[in-house]
């Protein structure tokens, strides 16, 4: 039986959305490990709650959007159109992450 969720569409949309939400800091939610609290990503940061963790929320945003797209779009069309070029999407997302994190590595080059 064919799955209703398109794995190729899910992965491609996930990679694109992950890079975008990382660039614009749009996690679905934040987690504050010092106080053990969650807040929605669009609410103001909690004062005096320590550092916020966005990673879980970034994956949740990318996963939710990708799931929606994977339910709407069909694999056959996308996989055929991008046959043997599908790998460009994860590679692009990985390179984008390094680019967005470049600020941490500046001290190595000064």
């Amino acid at each position, binding site marked *: 039986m064919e799955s209703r969720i398109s794995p190729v569409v899910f992965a491609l949309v996930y990679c694109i959305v992950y890079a975008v939400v990382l660039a614009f800091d749009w996690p679905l939610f934040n987690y504050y490990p010092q106080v053990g609290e969650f807040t929605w990503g669009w609410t103001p940061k909690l004062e005096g709650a320590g550092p916020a*963790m966005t990673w879980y929320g970034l994956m949740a945003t990318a996963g939710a959007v990708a799931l929606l797209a994977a339910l709407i779009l069909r694999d056959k069309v996308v996989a055929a159109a991008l046959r043997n070029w599908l790998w460009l999407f994860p590679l692009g997302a990985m390179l984008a992450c390094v680019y967005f994190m470049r600020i941490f590595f500046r001290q190595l080059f000064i």
Partner: protein
Amino acid sequence: MITALLILHGLLAVALLGALTHQLVAVLRSGAAVAAAGKSTFLGRYASVGQCGFTTAVVVLYIVTLVLGALIYPTYRIDVRIPFEEMMLYWAVGVFEVKEHWGGIGLGVLPLYAYVWRPQQASSHRRDRVVVTALLTFIVWSDFIAGHVLNNIRGL
């Protein structure tokens, strides 16, 4: 408890990178001539495995390893990252940031990985199969090495 989880996380990562590396070497050496000529060598025997058989194991190991990493992460954020920042080791913070984001991207790529390893995609998506497997292998190896280096600087 966190130390036990960290050790388990590391052990599962070893199993994962072993499975992915084995599969990648096998698919890179799967040309008929290479396979026929190389069975007597160590690399030939290493590569002569059922490549598709690794896929489910890789997906399960990746998810379990990532979940364990996600459980450990809050402790890192409080007990390790803040001291890194106080020591002005911003490159170490950056290495962890890249590690976590590549790990997160790898999670989303798993459905594509499973798709390209379906037997019916063997010829139509050959390049996707090789490169996606190589990317996942690279993510797991680099995350593993980054985790060890950072844990050596300041352990949990």
